[in-house]
């Protein structure tokens, strides 16, 4: 079992997503520290993938910028090891199955364990395929984070029962990206999850404004924001860290208010 649950002990959690190496790894390090200092409870670090099929245009762009800058899985592990000297909050990776598979799953999980990564989110690894990595993940104490979608319906209980770390509740159909409105009935989904597990639930996909984050957090245990942060990084580039820090503070204040 990882340290992920501790992220949900400071009231409702705010979870920022950052693509490693966009625009470069030095900037990523500054952004992670700024997010941690401004109240992020858990950080999702994206390992870029050439063909991120679950992402909308904003995060696709971040993936491609990072890869064209020469970032690799090994360089990202080195970054995490460096960050771990002072960043104490839990961190998880978000990437695609092939990145883990081609690195060799056991070697990948061993390095996660060694560098202090608590979990791995793989949007192209549904419940039916988690045996691909679950044994080695467990061996190294890494949580394979389960996702539940608006279409999960009768699958929710099955997924929730075996969920570790936290449950990523996908707010909307489609890919990642900022949305003006989230129409899924998140409360109902979380209620079904709660009947099967006490694993915390955080809602992601489409959240950008403090009001949305507060609303989603009020229905669950936390809010995840990706594209809105990537947009800030896209806009300010190497100077993005203080702007992301400010944004994280605003969002954490918003989710804290619903405790």
């Amino acid at each position: 079992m990882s340290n992920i649950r501790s992220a949900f002990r400071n009231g409702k959690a705010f979870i920022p997503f950052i693509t490693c190496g966009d625009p470069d790894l030095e900037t990523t390090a500054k952004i992670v520290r700024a997010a941690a200092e401004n109240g992020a409870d858990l950080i999702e670090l994206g390992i870029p993938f050439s063909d991120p099929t679950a992402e909308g245009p904003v995060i696709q762009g971040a993936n491609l910028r990072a890869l064209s800058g020469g970032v690799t899985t090994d360089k990202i592990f080195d970054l995490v090891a460096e960050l771990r000297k002072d960043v104490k909050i839990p961190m998880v990776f978000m990437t695609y199955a092939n990145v883990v598979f081609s690195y060799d799953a056991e070697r990948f999980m061993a390095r996660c364990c060694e560098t202090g990564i608590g979990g791995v989110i793989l949007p192209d690894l549904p419940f039916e395929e988690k045996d691909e990595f679950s044994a080695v993940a467990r061996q190294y104490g890494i949580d394979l984070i389960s996702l539940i979608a608006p279409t999960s319906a009768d699958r929710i209980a099955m997924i929730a029962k075996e969920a570790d770390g936290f449950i990523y509740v996908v707010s909307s159909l489609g890919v990642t990206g900022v949305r003006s409105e989230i129409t899924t009935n998140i409360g109902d989904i979380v209620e079904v999850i709660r009947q099967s597990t006490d694993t915390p639930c955080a809602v992601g996909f489409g959240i950008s404004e403090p009001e949305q984050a507060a609303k989603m957090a009020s229905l669950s245990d936390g809010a995840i924001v990706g594209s809105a942060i990537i947009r800030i990084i896209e806009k300010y580039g190497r100077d993005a860290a203080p702007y992301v820090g400010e944004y994280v503070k605003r969002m954490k204040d918003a989710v804290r208010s619903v405790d």
Partner: protein
Amino acid sequence: MSSSKGRFGVHGGQYIPETLMNAIIELENAYEHYKNDPDFNRELTQLLNEYAGRPSLLYYAEKLTRELGGAKIYLKREDLNHTGSHKINNVLGQALLAKKMGKTRLIAETGAGQHGVATATAAALLDMECVVFMGEEDTIRQALNVYRMRLLGAEVIPVKTGTATLKDAVSEAMREWTSRIDDTHYCLGSVMGPHPFPTIVRDFQAVISRESRAQILEKEGRLPDAVIACVGGGSNAIGSFYHFIPDEGVRLIGCEAAGRGIDTFETAATVNTGRIGIFHGMKSYFCQDEYGQIAPVYSISAGLDYPGVGPEHAYLHDIGRAEYVPVTDDEAVNAFEFLSRTEGIIPAIESAHAVAYAMKLAPTMDKDKIIIITVSGRGDKDCAAIARYRGEDIHE
């Protein structure tokens, strides 16, 4: 305990977002029901025979045989199907299935445009809405097919991400499907992607070898010595191989697009240059770098320009039942011209990869041996591009 489905050896599976899982399960259940439903099969057979023009001919290419001076060569003429390629076999099956499932909208990816044209055609016939995703690069290479799809009432969306070719079109179609599932069926064009697609598409394409096996037995009284087909994702190849798989004496040869050569980076020969990975919903062989980043592949043929291969082919390779050989752009273009001149048959540049390998193999075989080449599509769509390849400035 999880339960992975749709495996071919270690390959296959369902590596897709949770959002799509119930849609995939619904599709699998519907397919399991309808594949044995007499009414469904009657309707599909009627469409294939009365609309698409099946069975397709198994043509004895006497002049080609004489020119090459070895094995007797037959051509399985999928180019004579309505819409000009084998793609219609699968599309009619999936469109009919989608209709039975209550779907009103088809989405599809396309490389060369043949699958997009077939999907647009079926959508027109069955009164369904149709959206086709096509790499922007391919919309330029295959401009005529873009026009055909629009003429048939489909919307064509040029995909600008990544390498702007077939793999990006597949990614974009998957993204679209996760955003609109209720009324939409993703009519995947090859034996790839998550289960049950590799099985569904194979079953619908298996009509090719069901016919050709019976046709060759009738014409020659015996099975062929080799069956040759081109392989991108691998739908015409698996269709051409399927009913010969139990016949151990029949060599099954898939021709991959080597582009400028398998010792260059400008290639799409997945089995020859790739390694095992997980992408586009399946475990199989992929062209990729050491960190699992999918490689930008290249072939003159937009239809074979894909960094992966269907999981059943990966398995047939692993167990040694089928061989996968690389064929370069140059070899394919030579074959394109050679078949046109010797038989008066202009093959699709994809199919020309299979013809090219047969041109190497046939002369090494005795005259009493038999080869069947699948001509998966017609080459009209390629004429302008091949002319440009030869330095003639022709534009459509």
